[in-house]
């Protein structure tokens, strides 16, 4: 009788311990916990080897060589529902941001404007005939995945500039995202006209892209996921022609305190739940909002672009400009122009 009760209480204790250990190992990532984790995990764990470098993956700190795989995991799992989720999370505003981004870039070359006056009629050699046939822009859309920005740029070039030669190369590290983009491209006229191509590439080592070959380098909502952002900026500087433009559309910091409060509530409470309901993946969207939180603010990122050697478009008399806030700073457009003389 007594021995039975002892064994039962032991079993209960064991069960309790097991339950306790599982809850401890599984981090509960609600808004308040996330904020606490952010403060706790800013310094890298010291137990690991000294040689490895650390970077952040959301609020977690991971070794640099692991981040790429973790990001790949996130985007592989969300690729199929990526565009639907964007609409839900931003309430459709991401379309306006992307439209504005492309409009402000003004991609494309008008063939009438740039062919006739620049080539003099006296030149008749075959070498001189090449400038008379206008060459469109060579655009590289990094982290373009589903081709959202690429299609917009091609539409803009065709409709506004009557430019049928501008071509976009969509590069993404993730084959699943590229597959989603290819599917969309199949129903558009651009891939048949050889104006749109998809390449699997890492933005930090664009080995397939020759130096000084790109007119416009765009990265929309991608640069925040890069393991080493300065390295990617250096690579962008390398592949761009002198006078070429680096343009980045990315989440940033909200300027207004009250609006920031509401925005943080939305992003930390609603977005992971929407992710769970629609995409069936809470963690990926938790990562998304955490990575936005960890991304440097407007001025810091503008300085990073400047440090990579780019010239920032500053408003007259307004030094240190170079960026344009969208929706009160939720998103932000950064641009830089590669100067003719190497300033680095």
């Amino acid at each position, binding site marked *: 009788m007594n021995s039975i009760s002892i064994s039962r209480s032991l079993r209960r204790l064991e069960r309790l311990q097991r339950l306790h250990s599982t809850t401890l190992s599984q981090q509960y990532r609600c808004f308040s916990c996330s904020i606490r984790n952010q403060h706790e995990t800013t310094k890298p764990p010291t137990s690991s080897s000294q040689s490895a470098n650390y970077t952040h993956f959301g609020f977690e700190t991971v070794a640099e060589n692991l981040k790429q795989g973790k990001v790949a995991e996130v985007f592989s799992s969300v690729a199929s529902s990526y565009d639907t989720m964007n609409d839900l999370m931003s309430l459709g505003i991401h379309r306006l941001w992307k439209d504005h981004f492309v409009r402000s*870039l003004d991609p494309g070359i008008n063939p009438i404007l740039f062919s006739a006056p620049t080539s003099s009629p006296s030149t008749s050699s075959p070498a001189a005939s090449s400038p008379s046939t206008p060459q469109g*822009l060579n655009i590289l859309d990094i982290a373009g995945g589903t081709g959202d920005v690429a299609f917009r740029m091609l539409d803009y070039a065709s409709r506004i500039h009557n430019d049928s030669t501008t071509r976009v190369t969509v590069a993404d590290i993730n084959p699943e995202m590229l597959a989603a983009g290819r599917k969309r491209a199949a129903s558009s006229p651009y891939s048949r006209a050889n104006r749109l191509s998809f390449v699997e590439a890492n933005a930090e080592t664009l080995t397939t892209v020759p130096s000084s070959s790109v007119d416009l380098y765009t990265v929309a909502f991608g640069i925040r996921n890069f393991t080493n952002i300065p390295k990617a900026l250096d690579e962008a500087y390398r592949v761009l022609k002198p006078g070429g*433009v680096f343009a980045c559309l990315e989440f940033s910091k909200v300027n207004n305190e009250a609006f920031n409060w509401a925005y943080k509530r939305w992003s930390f409470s609603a977005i992971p739940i929407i992710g769970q309901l629609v995409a069936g993946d809470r963690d990926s969207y938790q990562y998304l909002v955490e990575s936005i939180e960890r991304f440097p603010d407007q001025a810091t990122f503008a300085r990073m672009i400047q440090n990579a050697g780019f010239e920032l478009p500053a408003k*007259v008399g307004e030094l240190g400009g170079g960026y344009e806030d969208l929706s009160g700073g939720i998103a932000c457009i950064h641009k830089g122009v590669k100067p003719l003389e190497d300033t680095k």
Partner: protein
Amino acid sequence: MNTKTAVRLTRQLRHPLPLQRTTIISRRQVVPSSTSSYHSYDHPTPPPYSDTAKSILSASLNHIPEHGFTRKSLSLGAKDAGYLSISTNLFPQGAFDLILYYLATSRLKLQDSVHGRDGHEQQWASGKIDVKERVKTLVFDRLRFNKESGVIKRWPEALAVMAQPTYVPQSFAELSRLADDIYFLAGDTSVDTTWYTKRASLAAIYAAAEVYQTQDQSAQNADTRVFVDSRFKELESAQTGVSSVAEWVGYTTHSFINVLRSKGAQI
């Protein structure tokens, strides 16, 4: 004699002759530049345009007579300067940045027309020409730049862009800078309340003259000169009118107070 030299010295300090300006330029490297809303030789304002922006914008000015104040001119200018047409992303306000650049460079050119070789400075040194005449000369100079650069035909386009609500504050700021520069270069040193009214009225006259100039078909813009002359005359008569009214109001108030005092009021 002694007072005369003293007067000349102060004038030289405010409007240095070319000889003295060289020393100021050398000092420029030592003194950290700062942005200020007033004219200072010790703290020159930093150049607002980078070398890249300057090369593209100045090349674009050559295309304005043909293509107007448009992004087209900017792209063609970028091509001429050795850049790509996409490099115009350096100018977030597009055509308006080109307009601002034209306004700023034309305004700064006035310095050369005063201090440069064959400038007005030598002529003005005699002291016979008063500030009003100098201001008029500078306004004519500025209007002449519009004609010489061939921009005036396209100026209505620029006015339309400048009138867009987002650009109005910057346009007014540039106009006020022009009025201020003209009075500064003319050697106006008064520090009374007319400081503001003078600049405001000059800005109004200049803006009106520019609109008139766009429709002026006469040779050498002779009609515009007549227009500006008559506006300045009106201003003068208005100023004398205002000062007589002020004198009358002051006299009447004084007499009224004195009448009250004579009746025993404790004022």
